[in-house]
């Protein structure tokens, strides 16, 4: 017996030591986080790590988030909205035909390395983007390629005739940008985070253009991995790949309202549950994308759930190429009438979600308030199916698994609800679930073997072309729909320079899409959220997920 007692005593002693250790540690933690001299430190839980820190090679929200704190764009968005506001440019004027943009630059602005921001620096950036040297770099500059359509020396087959012509520094505070053609995306697209202005000195010093292909992957330059240099309210300090934290510090020489926090740390926590528990344990001050199912419980625990105004579209894609029956407008309209989108929004989508009446949210210029409505009407749907002689229609309905998107928090639930609606009107639904990265995107966007599918889009900036142009500006295997008249109508709207006429042209596009073409059915716009502790103030949720942390303070 004595020996067994000794053993038990040893186990108990061990357990006690561990718990004492933990007590000491938790006290230390509380002190460590937020112990800044003036403004403190905020630790924000991010769902993913940035690909790199060079904005031109950024294409996802995780990469944009730190870039938005370190860089400025010529034009920015008024916080909490998608409306334009002065950024590095205090004024911008297009020529009458929209091919020349004159930017008046803010004076006295310096990059983090002390380089002056002037028209030459701005033009250096435009020239750099246009002259990206190789296929690897061009294939990564996705937003630039989307907006400016091509490069000086196109390496890829997808790039076309470049929109960019030249940039001239008329004087230190005036940059003149010449385009080869007018484009509706401007001026809103000048606010894209990818088009952030970097320090020419740092770009040269750290070989920013040296993005290269290495085997089956790309390697980024020293500029992109360790020396991003902008004019923003925070400066880059480090990216600790072991701890998975990105640390930014306040830029005391910032031209605008200086950041209140001393230090801003993005801690990468991919697991949503783990983010929630870190917030509850007090080791982070907030995090992005709480699951809508947790919003109420987080609020009741005293956290602030900040819901972003919806700026996305979920649609039910219809592929007429795969199934000729779907080429009949009456069938597509029957599908639209069959869907109880009100019930879907009420029962399956988070607070803040709304039914979509067209392929863009209400806040985008060009939204038409009077498009043809397809209110839930199963009788009308059955009637249309009967008229088209398709009362026994069978459709392969593809939906993604293992994913949540801002416009689609729970694809399986959304599929279930919509499929039930379709069954109610006599359509036989053949469900085809596929993992998002396990073939779904290839199936619906490349192969086009589906009849129906769920997909959506989150807007980048306030221009109708960013929504309807993306979907229907040219034929895509996703919809199997090809009507040159619609493509031409969208191209004409995009090339209309006058803002009022531009919006009016897109309003007509929206009316026609909903009444004459209905190539797919817009379903809803959903709200995504972020959550912070109640001692954090100044976070303004943005429809573009463009939250700027310089206004944030920790009380």
């Amino acid at each position, binding site marked *: 017996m004595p020996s*067994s007692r000794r*053993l038990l005593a*040893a*186990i108990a002693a061990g357990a006690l030591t*561990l718990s004492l*250790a*933990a*007590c*000491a*540690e*938790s006290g*230390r*933690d509380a002190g*460590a*986080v937020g112990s800044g001299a003036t403004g403190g*430190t905020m630790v924000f839980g991010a769902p993913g*790590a940035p*690909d*790199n820190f060079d904005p031109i090679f950024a*294409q*996802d929200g995780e990469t944009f988030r730190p870039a938005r704190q370190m860089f400025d764009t010529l034009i920015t968005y008024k916080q909490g909205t998608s409306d334009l506001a002065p950024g590095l440019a205090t004024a911008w004027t297009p020529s009458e035909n929209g091919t020349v943009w004159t930017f008046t630059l803010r004076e006295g602005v310096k990059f983090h390395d002390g380089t002056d921001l002037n028209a030459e620096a701005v033009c250096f950036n435009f020239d750099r983007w246009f002259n990206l040297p190789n296929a*690897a770099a061009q*294939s990564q500059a*996705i937003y630039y390629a989307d907006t400016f359509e091509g490069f000086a020396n196109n*390496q*890829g087959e*997808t790039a076309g005739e470049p929109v960019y012509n030249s940039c001239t520094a008329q004087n230190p505070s005036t940059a003149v940008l010449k385009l080869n053609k007018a484009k509706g995306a401007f001026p809103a697209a000048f606010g894209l985070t990818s088009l952030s202005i970097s320090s020419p000195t740092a770009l040269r010093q750290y070989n920013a253009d040296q993005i290269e*292909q*290495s*085997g*089956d*992957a*790309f*390697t980024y330059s020293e500029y992109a*991995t360790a020396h991003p240099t902008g004019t923003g309210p925070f400066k880059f300090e480090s990216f600790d*790949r*072991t*701890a998975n934290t990105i640390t930014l510090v306040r830029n005391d020489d910032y031209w605008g309202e200086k950041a209140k926090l001393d230090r801003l*740390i993005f801690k990468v*926590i*991919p*697991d949503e*549950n*783990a983010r929630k*528990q870190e917030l509850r*344990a007090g*080791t982070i001050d907030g995090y992005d994308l709480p699951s809508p199912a947790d919003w109420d419980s987080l609020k009741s625990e005293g956290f602030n759930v900040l819901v972003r105004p919806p700026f996305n579209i979920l649609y039910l894609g219809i592929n007429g190429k795969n199934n000729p029956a779907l080429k009949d407008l009456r069938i597509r309209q029957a599908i639209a009438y069959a869907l109880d989108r009100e019930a879907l929004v009420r029962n399956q989508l988070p607070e803040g979600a709304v039914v979509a009446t067209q392929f863009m949210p209400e806040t985008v210029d060009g939204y038409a308030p009077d498009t043809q409505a397809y209110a839930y009407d199963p009788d009308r749907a059955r009637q249309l199916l009967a008229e088209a002689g398709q009362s026994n229609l069978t459709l392969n309905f593809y939906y993604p698994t*293992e994913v949540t*998107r801002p416009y689609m928090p729970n694809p399986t639930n959304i599929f279930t609800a919509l499929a039930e609606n379709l069954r109610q009107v006599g359509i036989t639904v053949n469900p085809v679930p596929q*993992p998002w*990265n*396990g*073939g779904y*995107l*290839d*199936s619906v*966007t*490349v192969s086009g073997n589906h009849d129906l599918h769920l997909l959506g*889009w989150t807007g980048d900036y306030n221009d109708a072309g960013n929504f309807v142009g993306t979907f229907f500006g040219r034929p895509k*295997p996703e919809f199997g729909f090809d009507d040159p008249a619609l493509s031409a109508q969208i191209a004409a709207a995009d090339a209309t320079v006058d803002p009022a006429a531009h919006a009016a042209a897109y309003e007509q596009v929206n009316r026609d899409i909903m009444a004459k073409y209905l190539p797919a059915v817009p379903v809803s716009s959903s709200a995504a959220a972020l959550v912070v502790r109640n001692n954090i103030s100044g976070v303004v949720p943005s429809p573009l997920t463009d939250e700027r942390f310089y206004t944030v303070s920790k009380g």
Partner: protein
Amino acid sequence: MLRFVVRRLLQVVPTLLLLSVLVFAWLRSLPGGPASAFLGDRATPERVAELNRVLGLDQPVWVQYLRFLGRAFTGDLGNSQITGEPVLSEIGRALPATVELSVAALLIAVTLGIPLGYLSARHRGRPLDVATVIGTLVGVAVPVFFLGYLLKAVFAVELGLFPPSGRQSVGIDATNVTGFAVLDGLLTRELDASWDALTHLVLPAVALATIPLAVIVRITRASVLDVLGSDFVRTANAKGLAPSTVRGRHVLRNALLPVSTTIGLQTGLLLAGAVLTEKVFVWGGIGTLLAQGIEQRDYPRLQALLLLGALVYVLVNLLVDLSYAIIDPRVRLS
């Protein structure tokens, strides 16, 4: 002996070559690919094709394979498609995390498991034994991720005793020497960092240790019971040996033979369990690399992980064969 080792090492080469072919073909036969994973809902057929072209993924698989092989022979297993970093440096950084976690879990399982199993057997049928048996049943049955979240909810969130996830607190400036966070703190005399790392290690190690702990307790208990009933123990007791001598020299030593085999087997399983534990505790080890690699279809990373895993497996097996030859003279290595 030397000839045996050399021959076995030479066998490793064709094994790995065959495996690399299988891994290569298998990864590329999976639906989806790195291009559409990278592009997300910005994927268009043209963009996917473009990225595949730039990355050389549009070439025939055998061409891609030969290119991979050529580089692999120079020790270059490629760069991660997610981070652009060489996969070997990613693995080098993540491996210590996984080893640290697995060793900690194994230590907990062994140091608690053997005494508990022994005590349980000694007090067979008594409350301690019943509690242990029930406890081990639960331990084996509870999924690691569930236990992980439960431990976090209680000990990190409610009681605030331990940090909920990660390997170190934000703001701790630790010097990296070996990659083993606890050890590094001791080596560099940054005791704060070492302490911090230790507290982060506790919950994931406990979660990961549960199943091996339960298994070790049960095997020890059964084995001790078996030995207690054997003739030589009765003889030892009958000839008047001190009870502590009987327990230590006769019972425990004999009972530990099957236990040590179990520990060996559990070590392999620990690495598998580490994938889930790492996810729950955001641990940043090999499991995290693997899970993220599969999700994003990161071919170079997955190839490297699977091949290195196989290499380790083959080498460990070789060591086991060698150790048999040393322990058991009946095994000949010719």
